[in-house]
């Protein structure tokens, strides 16, 4: 495995917009606001951007729509859409393009107004014909099926799932930008309306508006810019299925493959990790990814998250923004994993700041536990 990409690029600008609710604004309006904020944060000009990476849940040809709206004529662009994991993949693709000299300043961006546009998950993803006669309500049906199997094989309980939501809320309560704040108990989760057994409403992510964007450039250039660079240390994707029917084992995601390759590229071990941002569209996700990324043995994820282990003050800082469960989840959440990791590594996370946050693991998930992309970001101390 090559480490040739480690530390070669860095995030030098970050912007968000419309976090939570942004009535009156379109998905592209919000994407553009976040992008311009990221460019300003980097101390760059719009005209400096020569590459656009985007995936959207409301625009099929995302890099095209984003570039046109912003008036960018990119010489490199990529609309790779692997669901919510797209943006972790974009970090890797943009690094390849920057390293190859195909572009100098890459914008990675996402925006959605799906809360104010109707409050339901919007997806361009077409149904699988062989599932259609059974009318699954994806994505939740797929995640509920995975949770049912995990409970069956490993004795995972609804209480354990609930503890994931409770921990996420406790982090959200330290984040002024989080959409869902206020006390949340295990009983609240257990008593919330059942959507698809065993997942209740509070086992499911929010449906919010929101946009986020970052600027990625080569490390040599990053050091001359105004922000402390947040370095890309490594990344890897794995994809084993699309339809949940074709997932080989519903208790093992392809993170078990993407994770080790990303660790290897980044030259990181578990003891080095200060922050883990795990794509928590549903409570079962956090448990699966803790297992598949090697934080605990397979089947032990449910017991691992008990007793506040991933909550503020616990031994592992996980989803410190409040995650997709309590901070923000506008259809695709992957860009917000990056936003929180950059905020933490810069030391700008306020009450939820992880002490000496040098290494962050980001794990993006797309489809129905389908595309899995793991990436690492690090501070200057890691280089």
């Amino acid at each position, binding site marked *: 495995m090559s480490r040739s990409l480690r530390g070669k690029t860095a995030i030098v600008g970050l912007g968000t917009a419309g976090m939570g609710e942004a009535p009156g604004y379109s998905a592209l309006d919000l994407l553009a606001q976040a992008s311009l904020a990221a460019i300003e944060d980097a101390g760059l000009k719009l005209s400096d951007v020569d590459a656009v990476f985007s995936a959207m849940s409301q625009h099929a040809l995302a890099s095209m729509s984003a570039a046109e709206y912003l008036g960018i004529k990119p010489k490199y662009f990529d609309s790779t859409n692997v669901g919510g994991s797209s943006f972790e993949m974009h970090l890797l693709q943009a690094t390849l393009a920057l390293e190859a000299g195909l572009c100098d300043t890459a914008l990675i961006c996402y925006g959605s107004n799906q809360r104010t546009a109707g409050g339901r998950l919007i997806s361009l993803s077409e149904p*699988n*014909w*062989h*599932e259609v*006669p*059974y*009318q*699954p*309500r994806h994505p939740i*049906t797929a995640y*509920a*099926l*995975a949770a*049912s*199997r995990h409970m*069956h094989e490993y004795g995972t309980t609804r209480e354990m799932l609930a503890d994931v939501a409770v921990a996420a809320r406790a982090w959200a309560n330290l984040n002024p930008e989080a959409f869902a704040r206020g006390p949340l108990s295990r009983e609240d989760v257990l008593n919330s*309306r*059942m*959507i*698809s*057994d*065993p*997942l209740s409403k509070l086992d499911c992510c929010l449906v919010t508006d929101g946009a986020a964007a970052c600027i990625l450039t080569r490390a040599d250039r990053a050091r001359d810019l105004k922000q402390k660079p947040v370095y890309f240390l490594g990344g890897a994707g794995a994809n084993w299925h699309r*339809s*949940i*029917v*074709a997932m080989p084992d*519903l208790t093992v995601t392809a993170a078990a493959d993407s994770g080790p390759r990303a660790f290897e590229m980044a030259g990181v071990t578990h003891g080095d990790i200060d922050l883990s941002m795990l794509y928590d569209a549903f409570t079962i996700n956090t448990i699966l990814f803790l297992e598949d990324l090697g934080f605990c043995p397979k089947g032990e994820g449910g017991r691992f998250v008990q007793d506040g282990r991933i909550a503020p003050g616990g031994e592992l800082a996980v989803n410190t923004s409040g995650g997709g469960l309590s901070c923000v989840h506008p259809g695709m959440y992957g860009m917000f994993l990056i936003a929180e990791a950059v905020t933490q590594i810069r030391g700008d996370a306020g009450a939820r700041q992880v002490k000496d946050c040098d290494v962050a693991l980001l794990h993006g998930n797309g489809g129905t536990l389908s595309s899995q992309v793991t990436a690492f970001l690090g501070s200057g101390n890691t280089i």
Partner: protein
Amino acid sequence: MNNEPDGNLGPQAAYEAFLQQGRFMIQRSKSTGEYVFYPRVCAPSGVQDLEWVEASGRGTVYAATMKRGREGDTSIVLVDLDEGPRMMSTISGDLNLPIGSKVVARVETAGGQPRVVFDPAPGGEGAR
């Protein structure tokens, strides 16, 4: 019974045509014996010599959820067919059939498009 679809049909169209006849058919490779579902033009190994065979209809519930809705609860399950492949389906009758239960297939033709549904296997309790 003829195991060839009527006319030159691709895998999805052929499967659906068999369902219209009330038959649950799956594909099998003549050379490797691999069973394939959902229907497609190749087996996992890449061979394309697939023929249609009658599914045994026997299977085991692999994962299960209940979709809650205003119009009532709907069972959605993944069933591991005895032949090997896994499919999405629904349990009619005992909606709360646990994971591991043995089930048998039936082509349900009531309503619009015919589909394969599963019933609890007779005496299936012991198999749990």
